[in-house]
């Protein structure tokens, strides 16, 4: 499903080229739940942006569902994101001026979906995350956990096969963090492929498989021993 081959990515700051990902290869099978671990600044988010087609690698191949993503146009990438991928961000990334309902509906406006089906999907997914009574609230009127649940409903409404979560519990207290993790595990059981980024080993342990990013490289074993206590 997700196949990264020898991915190289660097950022140029001024005239200095700083490599972030060096020769990263990763294979995620359908319905898998993979946790990506690594210290801050190791390149986890950069990797997730590439997996999520928000960014393209400098070199290497990314094959998503048998399609070479590196050759896609910007609009084609938008389409892939809209159809196949759902993002759950650490900072929720809801639109502050829209209600919970409108936030969930927003991505569907870019799909060819009839208004009645759109409405049906929004209601269904908002119910699924247990926020039916908070539908008309704006993000600022919701708690962090509730906002993250709206963000999850927004993902579910588009019915993507892959869900990418970048530190989804990073801004939440442990109780709401646990709620969010329970929802994510539920989605995995429903058949979604999940890639979760975290530096919390306890969260990573709930995944099927753990992958470590260190110094721009990936390994299935933890190299950095301090991680466990991080």
């Amino acid at each position, binding site marked *: 499903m997700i196949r990264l081959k020898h991915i190289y990515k660097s950022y140029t700051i001024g005239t200095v080229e700083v490599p972030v990902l060096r020769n990263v290869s990763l294979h995620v099978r359908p319905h898998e739940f993979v946790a990506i671990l690594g210290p801050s600044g190791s390149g986890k988010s950069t990797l997730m942006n590439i997996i999520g087609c928000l960014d393209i690698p400098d070199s290497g191949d990314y094959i998503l569902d048998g399609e070479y993503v590196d050759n896609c146009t910007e609009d084609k990438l938008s389409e892939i994101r809209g159809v196949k991928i759902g993002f759950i961000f650490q900072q929720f990334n809801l639109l502050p001026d829209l209600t919970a309902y409108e936030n969930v509906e927003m991505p569907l406006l*870019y799909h060819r979906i009839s208004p009645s089906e759109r409405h049906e999907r929004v209601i269904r997914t908002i119910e699924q995350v247990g926020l039916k009574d908070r539908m008309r609230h704006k993000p600022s009127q919701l708690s962090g956990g509730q906002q993250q649940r709206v963000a999850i409903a927004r993902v579910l409404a*588009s019915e993507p096969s892959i869900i990418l979560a970048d530190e989804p519990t990073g801004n939440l207290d442990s109780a709401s963090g646990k709620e969010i993790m329970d929802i994510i595990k539920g989605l995995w059981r429903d058949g979604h492929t999940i890639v979760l980024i975290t530096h919390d080993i306890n969260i990573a342990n709930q995944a099927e498989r753990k992958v470590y990013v260190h110094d721009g490289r990936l390994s299935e074993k933890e190299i950095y021993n301090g991680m466990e206590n991080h």
Partner: protein
Amino acid sequence: MAWKIIKLSFKAIYNNKMRSFLTMLGIIIGVMAVVILVSITQGAASGITDSISDMGSDQITATISGDDASVSADSIESLASYPSIDSVAPVISTSETVKKNSETGSYSIVGVTPSYFTVRDIDIQRGRKIAESDIEWNTNVCVIGTDVASSLFGTWDAVNGTIIIGDSIYKVVGVLEEQGSSLAGSEDSKILIPYSTASRMTGQTGVSSFYIKASSEDTVNSAIRSVESFLLQATRDEEAYDVSNQSEVLDTMSDVTNTMSLLLAGIAAISLLVGGIGIMNIMLVSVTERTKEIGIRKAVGAKRKHIMLQFLCESCALSVLGGVLGLVLSLGAIEVYNLVASSAAAINWSVGIAAIVFCAVIGILFGSYPAAKASRLQPIDALHIS
């Protein structure tokens, strides 16, 4: 989808009420300027045009300057035999001091023949007109306008009264119908006396001007040509006379108002362009402010065209809303103007609609650069801004 985008635009405008209003102000003022000015000038122009048409477009006026002896009243009468001409009325105009008891004033005295009433299409309300016999006998009678009657007699019932024109006593035999003001000077303030009496009073043998009534509106032009060739023969001097017709005045009038309207449209277009630059400015600010929103939208699947459309729609909504507000305010302003100037100017809807359409064009024109800029933002860069 389209409806959602429009709703979104108005929401964005509403969320920044003050800023949106200030941005729209340029457009509002531009639209108000054009709609109010065009409506009022065209209202005034159509008032004048109406009063000119009232006088009849079959009327021709000939004025003779220079040597007064050149054209006699009798020779003019011969013009009436032309097929294109219905009737002719020679006139001697002068002004004299008129006395009635203690009232004294200078009035315009017109020596006329009976045909004057037919040609000028005026009637009397009391008494009688100047008759053929008055001309024959040089009688000292007069027919006076309503303004003259009320200022000399204090009433329109002035028949059989006497007034002193110059040194002679005249008997009032009739009072004209009230005409109201008109572009060619109202008959209301004139005193009509027999042509022959006027000729004797002024010592003038030739006519100073004469009116011609064409047999129909279609023959006006050929009547004008006949009169012109007649006058050229009589005076042998092209500069000595002038023949004009109301329709020429109307043409000139409409030329003037058209030029005026064009000028106003030009000024308005410029002010709307300035308003458009204001919109572009604020849209650029808006794109920068909403970089994160654009990033989020792109992350969940929005394509370039979607972002482009959203911002275009917003700038368009801004300018069209400004246009509509301007139009509504113009309606009010014209009402106020009518109250203050006690006129009856009406809003010119075609200009109003044109202004709104122009606003939409401005919105698209000046919104396209900010919209293109927004659509080109990379989702990853846009998301990074927090």
